[in-house]
């Protein structure tokens, strides 16, 4: 098991993959998760317009506590038109 991070839309290009699995010992805050990632990706993920869904439900960034077996999706603004 692991914490699965999903990168939707253009964030996939920044992450270099649609998902990244992190081995985590205990549930992590968003800040702690960002520390485990490449700096460029970490900066992109904490942008003001990125929404997050924990196990399919939208959560505020401050509410993120994600551990083993969880799925945390990062959702950039949707495309227009």
């Amino acid at each position, binding site marked *: 098991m692991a914490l699965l991070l*999903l990168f*939707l*839309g*253009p964030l996939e*290009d920044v992450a270099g993959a649609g998902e990244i699995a992190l081995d985590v010992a205990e549930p992590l805050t968003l800040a702690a998760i960002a520390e485990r990632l490449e700096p460029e990706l970490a900066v992109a993920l904490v942008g003001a317009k990125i929404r997050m*869904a924990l*196990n*399919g*439900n*939208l959560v505020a960034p401050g509410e993120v506590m994600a551990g083993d077996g969880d799925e945390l*999706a990062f*959702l*950039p*603004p*949707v*495309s*227009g*038109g």
Partner: protein
Amino acid sequence: MRIAGGAFDPHAELADFANGRESAGGIVSFLGQVRQEPGDAVEALELRHFAPLTLPGMEQLVVRAESHWPLMAVLVVHRVGVMMPGDPIVLVACAAKHRRDAFASADFLMDHLKSSAWFWKREKTGEGWRWIEPRDSDHADLTRWQDVP
């Protein structure tokens, strides 16, 4: 209401939808397709979504429309994946006793599907794939419907 991972035939869908809806006086449909103009550089379009949010969001939207207008039936089919020019992207159909309700609800559904649903879109040209940015004008479309709870 469904998300289609592969190609669908909008006219067969519409024919099925109309069949047995003899109590509806009018059916309004919107078919959106991958646009290709002469000289257009777009070779393909890809739509991605996040199913855990897209599906409940679309279901909620249909419920909202059905609560506000007296509708007999609503059809929403939305493609995801890679599409070619001319391919259908979205089909919305609303069957109602009265014409005005069918028009308004189909218009409402399209405004909200395109702007609020969790879809990310990229286009392929000779220079490769490029993500489409969010657009402000879609938000303007939504202010038309502020009286719809």
